[in-house]
């Protein structure tokens, strides 16, 4: 077992480094599901109301696209339907971040070299990373069991294993990606792309088949999560499929890891030009960020095309269903199911664009702390111009992303070209507000710059699942997205967007003023 020597020490190191984030991921993922019975029970307090909800949701193809079909109208079954997919996506994101952080990122920074020079087996680093991911997913799964045990232990167990298992499926995908690329950023991007593809396959499959039997959903690990049908028959065999995928992918990752050197990868770096044409800070920042922007842009365009095609199905819903209307209205729309569906989509793209924008702003923070900004700022380059180079891809890039998703929706929905594009771009003020908050944190309190992710994540959670939790208005209003008009369909109001745009400008200016005054961080 020499190849695994040192695994225990490395695992403890990983958990020690993640002592804050790992419990947080588990808490958010597991706690979200655990809160389901309480919040849904308050909203749909009679069996009749729940049966009606289940029937209307399963009848509606666009709702199936988001959440999958409803397999049981018990509180447990509705919780699994409403939160299962979202929790599985969260578990997958946590898994991919943890695994890449403790494998490729360690190699990229050169820290692994020092560790591997100790009594550390060849398989130990990867094993430790997977164990750390397993710890996060186990924590989340235990919370799910604890929160849902009251609704039936078997179903709780099935849902917990489905969510945690999906997390491990993508953790092991990340383990493979980490062998393929030299860059941690790219390894995360590849795994995130696989996750996006899995979501799209399941969404398209479930939208097209009310029984949940579309072969497309069987191609997607997120489809497997739904196929487990917690509280709706508890199909344990599907869990075996998830386990088999985890084992096979783990073996593949080990196999790839054994065939390469520390620090090396299968997609090797090619030489670059011997002379450069980068004309300055702006060109450099654009060059550094263009890969991410291209990846996000492709995702937004494809996402728009896929989901725009499903919009027609939203109107399938039987017209006299009060509860369904209510939940649609709560999810962002006011008139017409199609408009509501499109408005939900548009706001979803808006929320995702904030993740890109925050990442792009914090890229400048990463340049600073990694020491790459130091010689740049020792050259004749003012801090504001340097910062502007990174803020341009963040602010203009998020506008481009929303335009692309709007374009995709327009093309595949095929009607009302102008309004959909406009509705997408109307999300910008909220995106910019979050980006501005990131600038402020970075410029004024750089130690806490990472909190910008927390702000974006909070808005995402409030926007995606907040309405179904029936949270008080004051809490929902914390998110800048709550102050945007619900488009298409809703009344176009300019006050909210205008106020948010001014707020974004103020936040950004304050952040830049802080950046000018403070010490650089090393």
């Amino acid at each position, binding site marked *: 077992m020499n190849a695994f020597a040192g695994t225990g020490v490395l695992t403890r190191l990983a958990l020690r480094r993640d002592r804050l984030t790992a419990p947080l991921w588990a808490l958010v993922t597991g706690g979200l599901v655990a809160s389901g019975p309480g919040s849904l029970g308050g909203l749909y307090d009679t069996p009749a109301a729940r049966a009606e909800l289940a029937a209307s949701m399963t009848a509606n193809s666009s709702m199936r696209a988001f959440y999958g079909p409803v397999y049981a109208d018990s509180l447990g079954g509705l919780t699994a339907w409403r939160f299962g997919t979202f929790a599985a996506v969260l578990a997958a994101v946590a898994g991919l971040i943890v695994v890449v952080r403790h494998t490729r990122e360690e190699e990229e920074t050169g820290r692994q070299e020092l560790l591997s020079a100790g009594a550390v087996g060849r398989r130990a680093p990867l094993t430790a990373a997977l164990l750390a991911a397993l710890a996060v997913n186990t924590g989340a799964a235990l919370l799910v069991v604890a929160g849902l045990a009251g609704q039936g232990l078997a179903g709780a167990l099935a849902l917990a294993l489905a969510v945690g298992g999906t997390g491990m499926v993508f953790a092991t995908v990340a383990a493979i990606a980490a062998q393929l690329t030299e860059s941690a950023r790219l390894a995360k991007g590849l795994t995130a792309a696989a996750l996006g593809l899995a979501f799209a396959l399941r969404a398209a499959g479930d939208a097209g088949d009310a029984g949940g039997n579309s072969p497309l959903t069987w191609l997607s690990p997120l489809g497997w999560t739904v196929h487990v049908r917690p509280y709706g028959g508890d199909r344990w065999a599907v869990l075996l499929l998830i386990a088999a995928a985890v084992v096979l992918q783990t073996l593949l990752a080990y196999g790839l890891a054994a065939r390469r050197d520390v620090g090396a990868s299968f997609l090797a770096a*090619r030489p670059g030009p011997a002379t450069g044409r980068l004309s300055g800070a702006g060109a450099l920042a654009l060059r550094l960020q263009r890969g991410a922007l291209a990846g996000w842009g492709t995702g937004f365009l494809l996402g728009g095309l896929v989901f725009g095609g499903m919009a027609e199905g939203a109107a399938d819903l039987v017209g006299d269903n009060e509860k369904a209307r209510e939940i649609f209205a709560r999810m962002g729309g006011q008139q017409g199911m199609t408009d509501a569906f499109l408005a939900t989509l548009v706001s979803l793209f808006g929320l995702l664009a904030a993740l890109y924008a925050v990442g792009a702003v914090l890229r400048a923070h990463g340049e600073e702390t990694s020491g790459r900004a130091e010689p740049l700022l020792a050259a004749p380059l003012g801090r504001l111009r340097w910062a502007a180079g990174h803020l341009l891809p963040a602010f203009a890039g998020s506008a481009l992303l929303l335009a692309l998703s709007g374009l995709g929706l327009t093309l595949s929905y095929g009607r009302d070209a102008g309004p959909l594009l406009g509705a997408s771009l109307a999300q910008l003020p909220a995106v910019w507000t979050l980006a501005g908050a990131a600038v402020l944190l970075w410029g004024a309190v750089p130690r806490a710059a990472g909190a910008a992710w927390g702000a974006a994540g909070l808005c995402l959670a409030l926007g995606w699942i907040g309405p179904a939790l029936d949270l008080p208005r004051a809490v929902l209003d914390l998110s800048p997205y709550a102050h945007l008009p619900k488009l298409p369909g809703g009344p176009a109001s300019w006050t909210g967007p205008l106020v948010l745009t001014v707020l974004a400008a103020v936040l950004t200016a304050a952040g830049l003023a802080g950046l000018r005054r403070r010490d650089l961080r090393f």
Partner: protein
Amino acid sequence: MTNALAVTGLHKSFGRTHALDGLDLTVATGEVHGFLGPNGAGKSTAIRVLLGLLRADSGTVRLLGGDPWADAVALHRRLAYVPGDVTLWRNLSGGEVIDLYGRLRGTPLDPARRAALIERFELDPAKKGRSYSKGNRQKVALVAAFASDAELLVLDEPTSGLDPLMEEVFQECVREARDRGRTVLLSSHILSEVESLCDRVSIVRRGRTVESGSLAELRHLTRTSVTAELAAPPEGLDRLPGVHDPHVDGRRVRLQVDTDKLEPVLAALLAAGVRSLTSTPPTLEELFLRHYADDEAAS
């Protein structure tokens, strides 16, 4: 002669850590100035204040006649900086980085000069940032700095990771820069490099300048080792001023003496009759060890 750099009473704290505690530093235009001190003495912090990357808590700092915080961009046009630990963008080639720094300075690099430096440093400019070794990353920054022909070169342990041949090339480049009238601030731990390049040195310890002057002046301040065999046992040697660690073993004597107090010691030895005598001037190593070791004793 004007000063390229004048720092007096510079203080800088990070929380409760006093990184700089009244640092003084004067570098005359056209000189190569060695900036020395043990690890953690505050050398890099001082350089970052000089570059306007950190803001001084108190003290005065003049760099090329300006204020490095307020006039950062204008001053940076006239200087080039090489950090001790160069980090590059993983997907940009060394050549791209060199040209980027040239363009940032506003005056594109002279292609012949750039090519000559790349040749001399044996750098492959087509490699991407990630594939360079530590020494090669240093070379990228060195080529960018020397190719710029800036008035002032600020070099923070620039040769860490360079092999001896490249170290030689580096020293040639610094001498050429001095011959063209450029000013160099060189922070370094490599004593042979300091000895062969620097006109003057400043030694910092715990954020404060402890010695400053030419190497000859500094040597004067240190001790000479004397070993002698005498005709008769000496008398009263340990009472002479400036004598340290005298070991008298019959007619054999070993002692250290402050170099400026050498004469009375020699007179005392002569009085006892000298059979043989060796006197060793302090090496640069001893000079630094004394300052660096004091630091250990004090902390």
